[in-house]
């Protein structure tokens, strides 16, 4: 009986996850329409932009035809979308090479930066979050609350500036510009990216610690914890043996949600440290109004964001038997 029930529960959970996945894909499709429309609103078009003010109308018309800009918008959207899906989002106007080449050069750098940041941020955030939840209402908790609340509101470039002042100007430990290239060894690479990682971590940790604390406190208010306390289990044991197994899913949910802050943070941090990643590429694309490149970068960021949200949703579903049963 129990086996049958859990099996049907599992099936329901899978259907629910499938639905979430489909709705994420649909959202991504709608996002692509939005981004495409906004990019088309550009006053003057790419042909005009490329030829400059002195071009004759005939030249502009010829280039428009060559670039396919004289086709109706929905045809251009369809061809752009199929290009995106098949890995060929068009030609970068400024670099004059395929967008896919430009991006494939930068994307691994950004992924590596994000992975290393998560590696640093997650344990620290867990420690702060659980620590302040255990000390709820106490002096440590209130101090950490004010500290993380403040860190959430501090601009990324202030954190970056202070990091540079301390580690590269005063202590001279680290270079102030992040270098990343294939020839560098791991040691040099890590020295180079230490400050971008530090800056991004500070931003993510504050957010993540607050959400972890909320997740753990939510569990602490449950009757089973009261029971464990009443029967005399030591506080540390209550947290490790009773609360943590139940809080893991909400915490993973919180991690996924707060890792999405990396996406916005990376825009500033990659630029200030000159890190050759996707976010600084996107900023360059905005400056040079390189729309094909910009659209592709924006879509990658949106896809990453939706993926994180999906992970958060799925862990929430798997963790909650009531949600699973529906």
């Amino acid at each position, binding site marked *: 009986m129990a086996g049958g029930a859990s099996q049907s529960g599992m099936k329901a959970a899978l259907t629910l996850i499938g639905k979430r996945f489909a709705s994420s894909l649909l959202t991504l499709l709608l996002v692509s329409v939005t981004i495409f429309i906004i990019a088309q609103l550009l*006053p003057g078009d790419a042909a005009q932009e490329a030829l400059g003010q002195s071009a004759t109308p005939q030249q502009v018309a010829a280039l428009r035809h060559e670039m396919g800009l004289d086709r109706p918008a929905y045809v251009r959207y369809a061809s752009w979308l199929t290009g995106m899906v098949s890995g060929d989002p068009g030609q970068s106007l400024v670099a004059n090479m395929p967008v896919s080449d430009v991006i494939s050069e930068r994307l691994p750098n950004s992924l590596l930066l994000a992975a290393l940041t998560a590696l640093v941020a997650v344990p620290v955030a867990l420690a702060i979050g659980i620590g302040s939840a255990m000390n709820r209402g106490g002096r440590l908790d209130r101090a950490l609350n004010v500290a993380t609340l403040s860190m959430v509101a*501090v601009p990324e*470039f202030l954190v970056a500036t202070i990091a540079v002042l301390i580690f590269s100007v005063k202590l001279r430990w680290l270079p*102030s510009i992040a270098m990343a290239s294939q020839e560098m060894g791991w040691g040099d690479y890590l020295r180079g990216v230490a400050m971008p990682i530090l800056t991004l971590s500070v931003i993510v940790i504050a957010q993540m610690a607050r959400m972890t604390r909320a997740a753990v406190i939510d569990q602490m208010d449950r009757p089973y914890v009261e029971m464990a306390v009443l029967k005399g289990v030591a506080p540390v044991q209550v947290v490790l043996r009773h609360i943590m197994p139940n809080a893991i899913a909400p915490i993973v949910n919180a991690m996924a949600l707060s890792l999405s802050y990396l996406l916005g943070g990376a825009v500033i941090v990659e630029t200030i440290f000159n890190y050759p990643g996707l976010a600084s590429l996107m*900023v360059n694309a*905005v400056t040079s109004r390189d729309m094909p490149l910009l659209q592709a970068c924006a879509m990658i*960021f949106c896809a990453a964001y939706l993926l994180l949200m999906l992970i958060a949703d799925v862990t929430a579903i798997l963790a909650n038997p009531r949600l699973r049963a529906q």
Partner: protein
Amino acid sequence: MIAHILSQAKALPLSGKLGLALVLFWLAVALFGPMLAPYPVGAFVAYDVFDGQSAAHWLGSDYLGRDVLSRLLSGARYTVGLAAAAAMLASATGTALALTAAVGGAKVDEPLSRFMDMLISIPSKIFSLVLVAAFGSSLPLLLLIAAITYVPGNYRIARALAVNLAQMDYVQVARARGEGRFHIAIAEVLPNMIHPLLADFGLRFVFIVLLLSGLSFLGLGVQPPDADLGSLVRENISGLGEGALAIIAPAVAIATLTVGVNLLIDGLPGRGKRA
């Protein structure tokens, strides 16, 4: 009224009082700062670039030998003014749409909410970068871009509040009385969601300050000769190597403003109960 506000301020925890003081300080700077500036904003007044603190220049000089304090006082007006206007626009639009959705029934609510859900799944910095690339970054456009970026967030909060309130008995009574939808939205629902909406307004303000100064820092926000606090950080970035006051002062200014608002909101009564 004033006595009521004073007693509320007294009831704030210490961190909330600190936040209130910071917020009032920056409001005063935005309103009166430029009048108190010791030098004209664009004037080259120091002999040296990236001077440290001195009696003549309280916050030193910038990369062109201009007075940092004077530029900061003027930059704060741009930052606070733009962000406050954009946050008001975002909150007003988001709340108006939310009320429309709440009293308009599923036919209005469904498509509007789907659309907002879609917009909210574009990260705000990415969305604003695309908007800046498409429209450019004059001051009115920046205001509009920042507002558009944060409408969906406000809509989501306001809609949740409004939909709950629309189920209340007194709203049902008003409906039975034959009141119009507009009256119900404005006179019955809206007054009861003002407090949480004010807290949300503060959060939007913080997000927008960070967004706009981030854009200015990237060179995509407020354009010279205008300068907000983010622009000041950007233009003095070459002084980073020598730890110039010209780059630290505006960055710290932004942080004290946003941290102040955050601490104030966190200290407001009722905040904990709602969360």
